[in-house]
Every structure is written in structure tokens, then in C-alpha cells.
């Protein structure tokens, strides 16, 4: 399923590399003790260091180092025991120091891999590096017609920049990569992955080339895209734009572009000529980070089970299908929810109910699994009622709806509404006899060889028993009686 853009002259392949900025989960900032919670009053979480006051010095928050190493290990990446913070120098009002402390020549994490499950098989996407850096503040332009205000709450917040190799070949792969990366950092507890709040931001490097070529052509960098959908749309637009440029005899220039989601297009922000010379050099206020192998091993020992491993286990342990397993592990909370439902029960049935019924409801009401109206324990009880033949699958759907509406335990609903399946052969036999006695024409049809009417008879019996009769017993009894 190669993604190709059909041009007038030939087919074009898209080459994509993503740079993801992931905010590290940490109570304090990377180099100061100020808090990091989202949505606080402007400038209420700013230390003297974050405000770039004279004589203030950064001190590394060791927890952030641990988080970065953890993330590196989660990406199967090489951990660099020696890494260095450098200063990236540029002027901007929301950058109080006049430089951003970042890692440049010596990042804390080297090459790694992210595996994607695509419809046509597994794709391995290379990670080039992961480095730590501090975030800048925020410029607010819409509060005053003449002035710009600055909120420094984000100034100094710890970020990981995760840079992929240019291994992605379609918007779909880019989307899958971002979803997978988000799942990994969420599993690791190193980033909450919330793109709306800016905890996860993405820059996309996009270029195109003739489908029979291996060259890497000039790329454009689309900055600061804040949803997976927009990343995919931006890439699609940009790739087609570049194809058009080449096919009309032009050439693509290296530049920074931004994605306008309202218009669905990318626009030039600044060209290479206007690019900053950041004058990187090692930050003399900070010592290099030197880790011991033992330190890294200790973190590795405490890594949680990650999506790929969990998927394999779900397939072998619960016997769910590969595609169901993929869906269940995509988010850690879903995986945990499923395991709670499935444990000691019919796991395939559990997977079915989670994926088809529960997800359906969640999508309808626009909630995540953490806000699910049905807790895992109760959904488990419902699965039990079905497995134990207390209710039929058909009735279970009604019970499920009642659970969504009222949040009650399924057992209670079944009791209250008297929905228990009828398994008493005598009771079913009476219903069957009545239906046969009342419908001599239909019986005649059957006896003349029309098998299809059996379904109709079943429906009639179910109707008489308000759907509660055990369908299998109804079937057997009906056939027996009809054959006379």
C-alpha cells in the first residue's frame, strides 16, 4: 500500500521525518523549582531563574534526567552516559535569558526504534536522537491592540525533543508513528501526551522525490502542529504542493512553514536566509551529565510492559485476534481496563464487549475510557452473566444500555427487570406448543419442506417469552415438535 502522489510526469514518493516535543511529566521545571501545572494564572509559576533575573543560575532537576533515560529505554535507544547542555542563543521576548538551554552535540539518548503496525505489515521507524531542553514562555497577542503580553509559566518547563529519521512515507505512517510514540510515553509515565494542552507538539520535515529515486530532496519544515489529524493533513497538503512546484519547473526551497488548519494549507514563515545562527556552546553554568551504567540498569529494571510486548501477551494469553490486541494496547488505560474485564473470564467475549459495545458508547458521548460510565468490574459482571447463560447476548445489550444510563450493576438490572433467561424446558415447551397450535399454516409449510419458517417460529416464541427464552433450547424444542 505504497503512498504515491500521481503527478503529470511521474509518481512521487513522500519522505517525512518528525520532531516531537514532549513535555516531561515532572512537578518542577528542568532547571528551577517552579511548578508546571497546566492552566495556572499567567506568570504565577515563575521562579527568578525562569524570569532570567541577573545572577540567577540553572540547577538540573534530576528527576527529568531519569524521565529522559526512561523514555530512551522505551524507544529501544542507546543511552549516552555522557551528555552536555548547551545554550541556543536567540532573542525573543518570551525567552527571558536570551538563550534556550538545550542539548546539541551530545544528547542524552541516541538511536532507537519505533515499530508501527500498518495494514500491510510492521514498519520499523528509526529514532535519530532524544534530547532534553527547556521550553520558552508564551507571547499573548490578543489582549491588547498595541501590546504583546508575556506569560512565563512555561518558561523552563522540561521538554524532550524526539527526532525521527526520515523513514516515514505517508501521512498515515506519520499519524501511526505519533500515536505509537504517544502510547509509549504514556505507558512510561514520562509525558501525558496531551496535544491540546501542548504537552506533545510536532514539527514535520517533508520532501518529495520521484518514486524510482533514492535521493533526499530539499525539505520544508512545518512547525508546531498540535494534533495528529493536522499533522497528517499538513503533510498531505505540503507534499502535493511540492510535487506541483517540481512539475511546474520550480524548485522547493528550504524553509520553515506553518500549517493553517482553518484553510488547510501550509504557508512560508521564514526562509533559510533568515534562519538564526544559534551560536550553540556548552552552558558554563551546568556540568555535563555523567551517568553510570548501574543508574541506567536500575531504570531499565523498573520499566513497565510496553505496547508491543503487551500486544504479544494479549494474543497468547487471552487468545484475542491480532487486530483486537492492537486496538486494546493503543492506550494504557484501555489495556488495563480490558485486562480487568478479561481476567478469569471469556477473554474473547470481553474483548468484543470492550471494543464494540463500550467504545461505541464512548465515541457517542465523546468520553475517554478513564471517564467510562461503566467501570471494568461491572462490565466483567455482564460478561459473566452471558457466559453463565443467565442472560442471552440479545438481552445483554439491553442490560448494557441500562448500565450506561443508570450506572447500575448488571445483576441488579436483570433481577429488577426480570430479564433472567428462561431455561426451564417445561416453560419453553408450553410457549412452543402454543405457537405451533396457533399457526397451523406455517407448520404445514415446514412439513412441506420449507426450512426457513423455523426462524419465524423462533421469533414468535421469543416474543411470547419477552426475549428471555434460551434461544438454543427454543430451537431444539421447535424442531422436535415441528417434525412431529
Amino acid at each position, binding site marked *: 500500500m505504497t503512498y504515491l502522489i500521481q503527478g503529470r510526469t511521474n509518481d512521487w514518493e513522500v519522505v517525512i521525518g518528525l520532531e516531537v516535543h514532549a513535555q516531561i511529566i515532572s512537578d518542577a521545571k528542568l532547571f528551577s523549582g517552579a511548578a508546571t501545572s497546566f492552566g495556572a494564572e499567567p506568570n504565577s509559576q515563575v521562579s527568578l531563574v525562569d524570569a532570567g533575573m541577573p*545572577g540567577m543560575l540553572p*540547577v538540573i532537576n534530576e528527576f527529568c534526567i531519569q524521565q529522559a533515560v526512561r523514555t530512551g529505554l522505551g524507544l529501544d535507544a542507546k543511552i549516552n552516559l555522557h551528555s552536555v547542555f548547551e545554550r541556543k542563543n536567540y532573542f525573543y521576548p518570551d525567552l*527571558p535569558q536570551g538563550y534556550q538551554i538545550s542539548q546539541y552535540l551530545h544528547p542524552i539518548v541516541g538511536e532507537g526504534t519505533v515499530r508501527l503496525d500498518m495494514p500491510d505489515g510492521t514498519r520499523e521507524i528509526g529514532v535519530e536522537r532524544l534530547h532534553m531542553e527547556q521550553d520558552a514562555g508564551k507571547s499573548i497577542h490578543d489582549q491588547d491592540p498595541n501590546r504583546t503580553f508575556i506569560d512565563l509559566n512555561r518558561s523552563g518547563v522540561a521538554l524532550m525533543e524526539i527526532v525521527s529519521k526520515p523513514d516515514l512515507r505517508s501521512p498515515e505512517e506519520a499519524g501511526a508513528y505519533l500515536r505509537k510514540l504517544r502510547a509509549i510515553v504514556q505507558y512510561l509515565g514520562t509525558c501525558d501526551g496531551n496535544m491540546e494542552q501542548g504537552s506533545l507538539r510536532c514539527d514535520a520535515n517533508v520532501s518529495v522525490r520521484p518514486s524510482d529515486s533514492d535521493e533526499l530532496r530539499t525539505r520544508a519544515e512545518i512547525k508546531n502542529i498540535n494534533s495528529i489529524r493536522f499533522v497528517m493533513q499538513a503533510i498531505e497538503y505540503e507534499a502535493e504542493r511540492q510535487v506541483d512546484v517540481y512539475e511546474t519547473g520550480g524548485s522547493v526551497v528550504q524553509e520553515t512553514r506553518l500549517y493553517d488548519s482553518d484553510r488547510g494549507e501550509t504557508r512560508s514563515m521564514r526562509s533559510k536566509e533568515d534562519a538564526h545562527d544559534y551560536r*550553540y556552546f556548552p552552558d558554563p553554568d551546568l556540568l555535563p551529565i555523567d551517568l553510570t551504567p548501574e543508574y541506567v540498569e536500575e531504570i531499565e529494571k523498573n520499566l513497565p510492559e510496553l505496547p508491543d510486548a503487551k500486544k504479544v501477551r494479549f494474543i497468547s494469553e487471552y487468545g484475542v485476534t491480532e487486530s483486537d490486541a492492537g486496538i486494546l494496547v493503543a492506550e494504557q488505560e484501555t489495556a488495563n481496563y480490558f485486562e480487568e474485564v478479561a481476567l478469569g473470564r471469556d477473554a474473547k467475549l470481553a474483548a468484543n464487549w470492550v471494543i464494540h459495545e463500550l467504545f461505541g458508547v464512548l465515541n457517542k458521548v465523546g468520553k475517554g475510557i478513564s471517564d467510562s460510565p461503566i467501570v471494568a468490574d461491572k462490565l466483567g459482571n455482564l460478561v459473566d452473566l452471558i457466559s453463565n447463560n443467565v442472560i442471552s447476548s440479545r438481552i445483554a445489550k439491553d442490560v448494557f444500555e441500562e448500565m450506561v444510563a443508570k450506572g447500575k450493576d448488571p445483576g441488579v438490572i436483570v433481577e429488577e427487570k426480570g430479564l433472567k433467561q428462561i431455561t426451564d424446558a417445561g416453560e419453553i415447551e408450553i410457549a412452543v406448543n402454543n405457537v405451533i397450535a396457533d399457526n397451523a399454516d406455517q407448520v404445514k409449510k415446514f412439513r412441506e419442506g420449507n426450512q426457513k419458517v423455523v426462524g419465524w417460529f423462533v421469533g414468535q416464541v421469543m416474543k411470547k417469552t419477552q426475549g428471555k427464552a434460551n434461544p438454543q433450547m427454543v430451537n431444539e424444542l421447535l424442531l422436535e415438535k415441528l417434525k412431529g
Partner: protein
Amino acid sequence: MSKLTDLTIAEARDGLGDGKFSSVELTDVHIKAVEAARDLNAFVTETLDLAIERAKASDERRAKGKPAGGMDGIPIAVKDLFCTEGVLTTASSHILDGFIPPYESTVSQNLRDAGSVMLGKTNMDEFAMGSANVTSFYGAVKNPWYVNDGKDRVPGGSSGGSAAAVAANISLGAAGSDTGGSIRQPASFCGVVGMKPTYGRCSRWGMVAFASSLDQAGPLTRTVRDAAIMLQAMAGHDSKDSTSSTEPVPNFEASITGEIKGLKIGIPSEYRIDGMSSEIEGLWSQGVEMLKDAGAEPLEVSLPHTKYALPTYYIVAPAEASSNLARYDGVRYGLRVDAETLDEMYETTRGEGFGQEVRRRIMIGAYVLSAGYYDAYYVKAQKLRTLILKDFSDAFKKVDAILTPTTPFAAFAIGEKMDDPVQMYINDVFTVPSSLAGLPAITVPAGLSNEGLPLGLHLITKPFDEETLFCVADVLEKLVSFHTKPSYLSKDAR
């Protein structure tokens, strides 16, 4: 009893301890001295009311039998590079107009905690960039030493105000900072003791940064013992500064034993620079002889990369400065010169806010860090810095201390050496190498030039071996027996 302003810190400490005078009395005479010496322009900001307040508090503590520390009640001056809570802090720059920090630097806090009484914030070269205290936005400082030629001499720099204040008996000691010689060179020019500890001994937190890998606070005093007492109050690990050392701080005063028998003193041949005056050469030889007479063993040592020290320094220091000074952008504090666009606001604010020397160093620093030049300049300078450090490590395998002149010449007249920055930079030729290597060093007044201006001798020891440094310096000080007072102190007779 001599005049209270003539005392050393040690004498004042004893006098306060014995109840011979109170801190308020001691402070009061110093306040009068500050007021009487305003023509020197040693202070950017006087904090005389605050001084009386702190002196009273000191006397109260002492009355309760609970003095705060080794410097309780002692009036001192603080270089305007240290952020002081509630007190204007300018680094002698226009760009920090009206900047009153809501915080106290670790060093000045330590000095407060030790009970000292701050008389004011001393004048300095702008952002500590200079060797003559002529780059200050608040005007040049006059050296209390002069000769009868009608010309005012520079006090040296960048801690020129601190050195002048101590030399003119305005304060008993002063806190300074040294990046390439900014304590030692002015101390030498003003005939006082100036000491730069090992990089990391004193916290840099709250000290306006010039070149982070070189900046180090230290004391300027009238005696070596006073420097030991004052450094004791200033030094110590600070978790707010990642480059602050966790080495235990020894009792510096106790290291002054008067005993240097058997110590090996290195004499680096590379410090005999071209055009060195015979008076400096003579002073140096005299110092060697004196230490030899006291039982030390002089040894020639080689520091082969010495000639690269100044060029290396003038790449590393401006590079760091260009980045450290980026925060002065008119956005949050200090001077803002409004303009139409943001970029213009940056340009006008920084153009007007920084003086010529600061702008020069920012330009040099930005240049050596820029794409295409970084490897040729910055990376090469870092390699040389490593070699210079290795020179010293090798030498200290053979010797316990190194003796050199402090400066290549005595104080010059205000206005001289202004045309060519390189001439100005040569002031620090003997102090820069130990700065690059992060080593402790001290200057001791050792004699007068032919003109009658003070000259200093300079001692350097291994990292964190301030004890040997103080010990040898004290012996040298006693042997030199330099008791000439600056001309300014006899100005009543003038």
C-alpha cells in the same frame, strides 16, 4: 588607640570583642569616611542608613553574647556586581537602571550572616569588563594613590571602587569579583591585598554574570589575615550554583602559621615578558630572595602556554559574556528605550544601555561563536585552556606555590591606554592564566614604583589549596613590610 578607620579587620574584630568600641561607633567613623571621600567616586550607591541599622543589630547581638560570625559589626563595601535585596544593583551599567533585586546574592548573604555591615555598593567597570574602572556608566574611580604630576591615576579594574575604598580607609574590606584579574590587578594598583579563591569556592548565585566559567568572588583587604577572615565568611557550597564546590572549607586564618620552611616556590620563566620594566623585574627578584631567606626553596618552572593565555581569555570570556548579557533586552527590568518595532527596541535599548567596551566584547563573543568560526576560535580556545591548566598541574607536581608579578606596570593616569584595547588587556597578562585554570591566587603589596605608586607580587597555588596561599602570602607580607599609605590619606595636609 589608632584611628578606627586605620584598623585591620582582625584588629577591629578584637576591639569589638573586647568592648573597646561598638559597631555603631566603628560604622559611624566609616560613614564619615565614605562621605569625606566622595571625590574618589568609589561607590555607585551608599547604604549609610542601612549600615547604621545593621551596626545596631550587631551591637545588640553582641550585647546578648551571641555575635553572628567572624565579621560581626565590621563595615565593608560590596562590589555593585552582587545583587543585594532592596538595594539598587547596576554592575555600573546604564542598562540596569533602577534595578532593585528582590533577592540577595549568596556571597553578600553569607557576609550578612557573618554579621558584617554593608556601607554601600562599589563602582566597577561596566559588567566587570575593564582593567581601569573607566568603563563605568557612573564615571571613573580615582586611585587614592597619586604623585605630584596633577594626574589622577586609575585604581585598576574591574573591582576599582572596592580597591580604592579599602586603600583609602573608607571600608575595612570589600567584596570583589575576579574574572581575569579584576580583584588582583586593582588591589595591586591601590596597594592592598586582593585574593581570588579557587573557582567554585564562592557561589556565583546572585552575582551578575560576566563569564560564568571564570567569574569568582573574593575579598580585597589591607592584610593577608583579613583576606583569610573575609573569605571564610564568603565561601561555602551552594546548591543553587551547579559549579559550586563541595570541598570542605578549611579554617583559612589557622593556615597562617608563619612557617614556610621547605616549601618549593615556582618561578615561571615565561612570565619574563618582553618589555617588562626593570622595577617589576627587581621587585620580583626581591620577592624570590625574601621567600628564600624565610626557608623556602625557589625553583624555575615552565608554563609553556602562558603566551596563549590572553588570546584564549579574550575568546572564552567574550563568548560567554555575549550569551550572559543577552537577558538585558529591555523586556523585563532595567532600561528600555522604546521604538517602533521589537527589533528596534532591542537595538536602541542595548545600543544605549551598554557602553563601548561591553558592546565590543559582545560583538567579539558573538563572532567567535558564530557558524563557521566556532571551531577556529571557541573550540581552539577551549583546547588551549586545557593546555594552560595542564601547564599548572605539571608545575604543581614540583612546587607548592608560584610567585609572579601581579601586573606588568603600576597604575596609569585616567585616560591613558584608551585608544588601543589590546594595551588595556595587557594589564591582566599575569593574572589571566590562573583565572583560566581556576586556581587560587593572591596579590600582596610589595613595593613602590620609581614614580612612587604601589606594586604587587602575586602567588598562585593548587586548586583548593588556599591554605598554602595564605600562609606564604602572610610570610611575604611580613617580610616586605609595606607600610606606605596612599597619598590621599594625607590629603588634609595637601
